[in-house]
């Protein structure tokens, strides 16, 4: 019995990204750079608000890295689509969901590298799993699920794009409001009142809050349920639409 198509394509995607030094820089250097820069620029300001960056920032940087991961994969998805590889794959007996699922599994592999690096540096800076490392697997699981959701969503958008650079720039636009208008860098109470409900319930906030609760001592049930609902919902919807788009490729 040979390997299923999505696994083969996932392996191809991992090989392809790992040959590209930019994706290694993107997975390791940029998250650490943002980590260092936010610590330098905002730690004093935020600790004056009672928001401890040493404990709270690593989870934000993890999710930022997950967004970077999904964004970088738009390049490969659009390139595969436009270079004709996808049309070639369509001549094979392959499930419609295989190409984008394979791509998102490669993203998960890259995400694990980012999570590891950020958590190690976070531990050095002073982040602690206050209820013990028993919560670490759940922490990684929530982050990975979020990566898959974002990867399938941005992959779907990239697949529809008429050009590679168009795909990459379209993927850049939601990134900024999603990460900035979240609990990543400031407490939710700091936002203008009318924005608070959006900030509180958008996927990035509930996922970061889940990670923080898993690492800390806060209530985990509510953000966890919201995060899983967002991630699973996006995986199902974007996955189904992506598979349909692939099946229609000629």
């Amino acid at each position: 019995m040979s390997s299923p198509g999505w696994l083969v394509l996932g392996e191809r995607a991992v090989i392809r990204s790992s040959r590209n030094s930019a994706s290694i820089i993107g997975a390791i250097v940029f998250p650490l750079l943002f980590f260092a820069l936010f610590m330098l620029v905002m730690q004093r300001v935020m600790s004056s608000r009672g928001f401890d960056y040493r404990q709270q920032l690593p989870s934000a940087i993890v999710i930022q890295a997950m967004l970077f991961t999904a964004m970088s994969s738009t390049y490969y998805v659009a390139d595969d689509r436009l270079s004709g590889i996808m049309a070639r794959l369509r001549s094979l007996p392959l499930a419609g969901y295989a190409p984008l699922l394979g791509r998102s599994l490669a993203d998960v592999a890259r995400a694990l590298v980012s999570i590891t690096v950020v958590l190690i540096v976070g531990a050095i800076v002073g982040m602690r799993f206050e209820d013990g490392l028993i919560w670490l697997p759940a922490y990684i699981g929530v982050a990975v699920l979020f990566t898959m959701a974002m990867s399938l969503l941005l992959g779907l958008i990239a697949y529809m794009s008429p050009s590679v650079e168009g795909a990459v720039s379209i993927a850049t636009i939601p990134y900024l409001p999603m990460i900035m208008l979240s609990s990543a860098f400031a407490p939710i109470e700091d936002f203008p009142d009318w924005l608070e409900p959006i900030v509180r319930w958008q996927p990035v906030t509930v996922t970061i809050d889940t990670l923080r609760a898993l690492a800390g001592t806060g209530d985990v049930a509510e953000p966890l349920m919201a995060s899983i609902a967002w991630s699973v919902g996006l995986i199902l919807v974007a996955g189904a639409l992506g598979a349909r788009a692939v099946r229609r490729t000629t």
Partner: protein
Amino acid sequence: MTTIASSHNSDQPLEAPALAQDSAVFLACTIRSLRRLFRRSDIVVGTVVFPILLLLTMLAVFSSAVESFDAGGGNYAQRLVPGLTVSGLLFGSIGSSVGFFTDLQSGFMTRMRSLPVPAAAPLVGTVAAEGARAALAVVPMAALGHLFGFRFENGPLAALAYVGVAVVIAMCLVWAGLWLATLVSSQEALISPLNALYLVLLFLSQGLVPLEAYPDWIQPVVRVNPASTFVVLLDRLASGGPLVQPTLAALAWAFGIAAVFAALAIRRFRQVV
């Protein structure tokens, strides 16, 4: 070896018409560079959409925290508009570097070299287009900032100087990217290092938070960071305060960067084209 600007003139007997022709070529190259900038969706997003989104989101996230930390500093938009203007000059220049790189790779530069036009024309065009792009990027940022409390408190002359300074800085900074574009073999090898460098320059400038917000040990670095000197000069032009020292510091950095990287870029350019 003749200089770049005059390399073709030896076989042209009439200087005056040649000068007019040269200006026409420079202008044509500038317009071409500008048009290309605005045709590429990634560059428009980077130059126009991204800075505006950054201004709106930074205001939403950090206004309360920075305004309460920096009690005497007043409105956050007053600090952030000069800061993100410099951010736009830095990150926007990456687009011009990418365009220049594409021209080198596609053979456009080699083709230009075979024509009876000044060899410097495409370089001059790229740099002039960068200046025009900066002027176009500065205005919407200031206008949008106005909605959130940003004011040119020094009057219209200082506002004009603000735009002029931004254009000069942009035309100086872009040389670093142009030089890198002559060295690398892929767009990613050009974009990633510039992104990382400009991110550090921006975060360690005084454009996002006041100097006192940084840890004490890094404050001297923040103070001399070129991006910091640009932010301080733009901030003084917008908000008032002594101008002599900030002007000298910012222009020394801008012209220093331009002198070093223009020399390097032009040398490499002659070798590779």
